[in-house]
């Protein structure tokens, strides 16, 4: 679209200028980047060990003493039957923790956008002849990049920890791309929703209140931390539609198993399709909401 004097309205140019600005700010502020590493470490090392369900299996049940090998067998059975065959609880947990980190970083990542409104930067760019879509999508991309970087850090921390993430046999680059592709679809969808929300609210207080209200149910009705097998039926039904469950299941399937059987491939494909549809839907809903929020009032 021609704007004036031969200058072209350039969605990609606007998008890259705004995204570059946000990422430069992020990289230049060590206080924003470093805690990500420690958050990953704390979640995986502390949560992964302290909540490890195989650690609470008693060796003596009503006077019946299990030998150490029997105890190990019980633990392995729990992991293989309830936790999808994961070698360790952290192997099961990693995909869930990455999802959890994505959700919370997406949700609170909007604070930068609210500050842009409060400090007047948003008005400065709204008075420029740029596409409104570039403001929305730069918010989506910057949030996604920041959260996905933390996702990669979490993955690396989980692998490096002793008794941490033990990847399935044959896990290769394609599986890595598949697992993080599923997580990226979830990240995109969440980023669309939370970016639109951040562009719509006027204060950080409002954003934090809404985010707190929305994120906890979202996480705890998913299989991020625990499998759905023992959920009550109503929770299982909700969990089944929860996109976090789909992303966790897809990424976990690849991380735990590496090479997938044909039935696992089908299950992975359905999860990916669900996430793709969810991402498109949230992209459209977020775009419409952001457009409304950015229109002159």
């Amino acid at each position: 679209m021609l704007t004036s004097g031969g200058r072209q309205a350039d969605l990609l140019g606007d998008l890259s200028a705004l995204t570059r600005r946000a990422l430069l700010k992020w990289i230049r502020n060590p206080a924003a980047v470093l805690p990500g590493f420690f958050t990953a470490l704390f979640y995986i090392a502390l949560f992964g060990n302290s909540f490890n369900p195989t650690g609470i299996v008693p060796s003596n049940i009503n006077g019946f003493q299990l030998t150490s090998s029997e105890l190990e067998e019980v633990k392995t059975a729990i992991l293989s039957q309830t936790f999808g065959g994961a070698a360790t609880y952290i192997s099961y947990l990693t995909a869930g923790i990455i999802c959890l980190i994505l959700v919370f970083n997406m949700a609170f990542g909007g604070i930068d956008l609210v500050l842009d409104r409060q400090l007047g930067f948003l008005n400065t760019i709204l008075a420029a002849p740029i596409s409104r879509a570039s403001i929305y999508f730069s918010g989506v991309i910057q949030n996604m990049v920041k959260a996905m970087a933390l996702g990669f850090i979490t993955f690396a921390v989980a692998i490096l920890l002793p008794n941490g993430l033990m990847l399935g046999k044959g896990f290769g680059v394609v599986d890595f791309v598949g697992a993080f592709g599923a997580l990226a679809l979830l990240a995109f969808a969440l980023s669309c929703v939370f970016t639109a929300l951040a562009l719509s609210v006027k204060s950080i207080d409002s954003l934090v209140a809404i985010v707190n209200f929305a994120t906890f149910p979202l996480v705890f009705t998913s299989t991020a931390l625990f499998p759905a097998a023992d959920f009550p039926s109503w929770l299982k039904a909700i969990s089944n539609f929860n996109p976090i469950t789909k992303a966790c299941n897809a990424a976990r399937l690849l991380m735990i198993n590496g090479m997938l059987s044909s039935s696992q491939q089908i299950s992975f494909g359905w999860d990916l399709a669900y996430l793709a549809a969810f991402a498109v839907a949230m992209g459209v809903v977020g775009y419409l909401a952001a457009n409304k929020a950015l229109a002159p009032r």
Partner: protein
Amino acid sequence: MRRLMGSIIEADKLSKLYPPKTKAVDGVSFNVEEGEVFGFLGPNGAGKTTTIKMLTTLASITSGTAKVAGFDVKHESARVRESIGVVPQELTADDELKGVENLMLLGKLHHVPQSEMKEKARELLRLFDLEEASERRVRTYSGGMRRRLQMAMGLVHSPKILFMDEPTLGLDIQTRTKVWEYIKKLNVSGLSVFMTTHYLEEADSLCRRVAIIDHGVIKVLDTPARLKERLGGNVLILEVSNGVDLSEFLRTIPTVSDVSRDGHMYKIKLPKTEDAIPAIVDGITSRGLKITQISFLKPTLDEVFLEVTGRTMREEEGEAQESWVQNVNIGRSSS
């Protein structure tokens, strides 16, 4: 000042209603000529910023029409945005970016070709004396430097008109005077400027015409000189050595519009010029009388403002400054 060509802003019965019933701007009509520095004065909440927001496409227009640089604000907002530069009240330059990076960012968002951008940034940094600080992050800038950078950011795409909302609010006198110099320099180079201000001496010194707005309505619009003349012009106060009545003599001097006497004291109104003063002094001394006290009062925009709004500008300045400082503190402390 630049030769005037035609209207760069045409506002016709412009209104803004904030639901349910707050009429922030109520049918204002005015034109700003190309090449003119036009001042918008008014108490807090009078509708100044809302008017700027409507003209810069940041707020919707409830009724009426406005054209900026020949484009309809409502229906051709993208064209308007290409033609305008905006220097908001807030300091919006990004703290974490360098001065030059802020300029380049705004240049990109205004689609200035890359080939022109570097030269333009250099030119603006030179104009606003920011060359040495250009590679420093803005967080290290003083308030005055931030304000200058903000002005440079508004000019990076060579706009036809620059909107400035309280350009010197929160600045010390020295920096304020420096900003006035920049505005004068820009105007000489041909830029039209629409500005709001709380500083009457600023409007007096910079603006060819000013409008005083109150409760969303333009109360007066004219040149500062003519607005002051409306108050009856300059006043000469004299005390003479004895009680001889000089009123009749004083009334014969052509530019004297009114004379009142209280004993030895005379209050003489001179609407247009001070040329009469030598004639008055000569006339009195040639009668063998002595002038024991003399003072000359020029009406200021402050008095015009008081008459139009019922408030002095000094109260407004204090409130505006306080609220601006609070806003900035809230913003910075949350970051």
